[in-house]
């Protein structure tokens, strides 16, 4: 037994690798991986994703922590960055490369080549027919017909082999190579890109350094010192609304930008679909809201807090919620507040906003005293008040310019400012992805609308013709009829 085994290739090592590679790069595997990628993308659209909707993910954790924990173990809140999703698309692209590269090489080699020889038994091919014609001139006539219809022609003795539609494979390969280019673009973007966000009130100045951002994330190979050194001042922000529906119709952000820092400022208008571009970095207008401006004084009239406070919009009419924290008073004072741009009130709903523009604003305050919890070391949101160690001391709705005496001091509602949320993104890979996408469409069009087919003519005592269309695409029959007619007419003369 052992002697017989000596001749067989050893399972393991190189043979196993080669077997695995062949399996991975087979068409079947590529197709299964493609379908699997589609299926794997589904959970990400059914469950909230951490990078899109973190609040909703949190609500999963509060309503059923055990289930949420298990879902998290399977990366269901972060599907598109999960190891299993990455595994599928990496395998797919390795499979694609393994499939496409050898085909590209053999296609390049085939460029100058002649069509393959005429098969011996034409009668097994499609549309086989015998033509009553003159064998003497048939070859010439057929050759002329093929040339005028831009076939590649190979004449061997008394037979012609003609082929047309090489561009199908060219387009096909272009399409698949373009997909690889898109992946390269995506990879470059995530390895060398950066993305950050900042909220600025009208009048604020932003200097593009990492510490100026509210949050910022870098690609694996992106250095922190690589931010373009510009400074941006928010001069004005105008939101216009449809008077009937209250829907926003336009947002215009006016900024002064000096790039590089210290150079003369330039007026730049940024809109929702019109970001400002510097190099491969773009500055986008993402969101906006209101920052009520308040002044808090203690009993002696000394100012303990002053300025705009950013509130987060809660609905389409921009009712906004926020927290005003005054740590420098004894006891510490905090306000849970809502800003109502255009106030109206009813018995059931209390005070609510009827229009997103600030036409008749109110600042509704609930005042709290006690410990704000700012020194505990645990980070807390600037938009909400931690009332665990506080007691409520009052409730008041302020009109513009009015003051509320909460017992330990006063708070005055001076006005409001608009704030804008700017997203600053650097994606050096996106041009590759774009070109990949455009070439992919081009390749797709070429490959789907090119028919590849072969036609043979063999001259013996009779003239025989037959053809073969790749993938059974129709149209061959019509060409065979046209060729037959040409041969019959040509050979009659």
């Amino acid at each position: 037994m052992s002697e017989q085994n000596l001749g067989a290739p050893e399972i393991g090592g190189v043979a196993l690798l080669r077997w695995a590679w062949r399996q991975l790069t087979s068409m079947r595997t590529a197709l299964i991986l493609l379908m699997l990628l589609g299926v794997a993308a589904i959970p990400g659209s059914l469950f909230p994703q951490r990078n899109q909707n973190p609040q909703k993910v949190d609500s999963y954790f509060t309503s059923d922590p055990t289930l949420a924990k298990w879902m998290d173990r399977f990366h269901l809140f972060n599907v598109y960055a999960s190891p299993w999703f990455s595994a599928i698309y990496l395998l797919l692209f390795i499979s694609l490369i393994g499939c496409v590269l050898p085909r590209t090489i053999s296609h390049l080699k085939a460029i100058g080549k002649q069509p393959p020889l005429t098969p011996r038994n034409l009668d097994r091919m499609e549309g086989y027919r015998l033509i009553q014609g003159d064998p003497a001139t048939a070859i010439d006539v057929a050759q002329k017909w093929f040339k005028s219809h831009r076939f590649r022609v190979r004449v061997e003795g008394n037979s012609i082999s003609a082929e047309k539609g090489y561009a199908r494979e060219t387009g096909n390969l272009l399409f698949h190579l373009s997909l690889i280019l898109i992946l390269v673009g995506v990879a470059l973007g995530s390895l060398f890109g950066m993305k950050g966000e900042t909220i600025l009130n009208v009048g604020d100045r932003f200097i593009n350094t990492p510490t100026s951002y509210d949050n910022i994330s870098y690609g694996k190979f992106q250095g922190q010192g690589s931010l373009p050194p510009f400074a941006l001042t928010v001069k004005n922000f105008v939101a216009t609304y449809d008077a009937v529906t209250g829907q926003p119709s336009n947002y215009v952000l006016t900024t002064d930008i000096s790039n590089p820092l210290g150079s003369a400022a330039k007026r730049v208008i940024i809109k929702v679909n019109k970001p400002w571009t510097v190099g491969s970095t773009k500055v986008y207008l993402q969101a906006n809201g209101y920052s009520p401006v308040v002044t808090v004084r203690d009993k002696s009239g000394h100012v303990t807090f002053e300025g705009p406070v950013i509130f987060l919009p809660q609905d389409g009419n921009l009712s906004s919620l926020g927290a005003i924290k005054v740590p420098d008073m004894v006891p510490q004072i905090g306000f849970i507040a809502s800003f109502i741009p255009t106030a109206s009130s009813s018995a059931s709903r209390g005070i609510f906003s009827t229009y997103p523009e600030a036409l008749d604003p109110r600042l509704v305050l609930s005042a709290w005293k006690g410990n704000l919890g700012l020194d505990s070391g645990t980070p807390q949101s600037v938009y909400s008040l931690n009332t665990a160690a506080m007691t409520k001391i009052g409730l008041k709705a302020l009109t513009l310019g009015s003051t509320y005496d909460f017992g330990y001091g006063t708070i005055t509602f001076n006005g409001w400012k608009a704030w804008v949320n700017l997203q600053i993104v650097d994606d050096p890979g996106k041009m590759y992805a774009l070109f990949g996408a455009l070439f992919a469409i081009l390749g797709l069009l070429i490959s789907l609308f090119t028919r590849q087919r072969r036609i043979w003519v063999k001259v013996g005592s009779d003239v025989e013709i037959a053809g073969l269309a790749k993938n059974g695409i129709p149209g061959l029959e019509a060409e065979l009829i046209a060729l037959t007619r040409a041969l019959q007419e040509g050979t009659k003369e």
Partner: protein
Amino acid sequence: MTSSNLAYFSNDAIYACLAIFTIAFFAHAFEVSWSVKNTSSDDKTQFDFSRTDRAGRLGTAMMILGTLVLAVADITRGLSAHRVPWGNMYEFSITGALMLAGAYLFAFTKYKVRWLGLPVSISVLLTLGTAITVLYRPSAPLVPALKSPWLAIHVLAAIISGGVFLVANLVAATFLIMERYELKSGRPKWAEKIPTLDALDQLSYRLVAFVFPLWTFAVIAGAIWAESAWGKYWSWDPKETWAFITWVAYAAYLHARVTVGWRGRRAAWLCIFAGSTFLFNYIWVNIWGTGLHTYSGL
């Protein structure tokens, strides 16, 4: 006319369309049902369309009239808001219904497809009825994020591809039904006008192959627009995810046909599966989904 007059006019025209397509529907229903001819002993139902030809012609006339009025309604809706009429789901629906009716009439001029009048008129009626009752929104300017030339390009490409995908689905479904008949006892009389199995199989493939590049373009145009509006060309928003799933499903369908050689029943089922991912995206993600595509106010 002022903008609001135009908008009211558009609404009235939609109601008129509902009436006209209802007549078309009844005419086509009459055409089919009154053509039933029972030849005594034979159990099989026989059809004789020559008996109800006039009803069929009335149906066609109403389809043409309805489509014209629908076109006017769609155009005035766009004019009233000074933009293309596909800014929210109400407008997608009326534009989509117009495309469907138009595609039917275009096919009608080339082939004998009057038998499709019944399903087409009922589909148009259902779409318009749902649109004007459930999905209706007053005519208004676009929210800032939709103010882009890409709205016309991206959404139009998506609507057209969607329409063709659905027609391919109908053809594939017809294939499956006809195949069942042929395997059992042969086609019934009324189905004799419908093309052969082979022709149906080829037709659904050709429709998909023809429109797949357009769908690819719609997705890419969306990515380009997303890049300028949201700062990221791909963010796995539910709508993007399902557009991708549809793309993958049709890519698999094309591969299955071209390289693996699937034909007939298996190919038809795969085609229907791919088409239903598109429908799921249109209905489920628009209405119950969350994400960046939801600002259309339905």
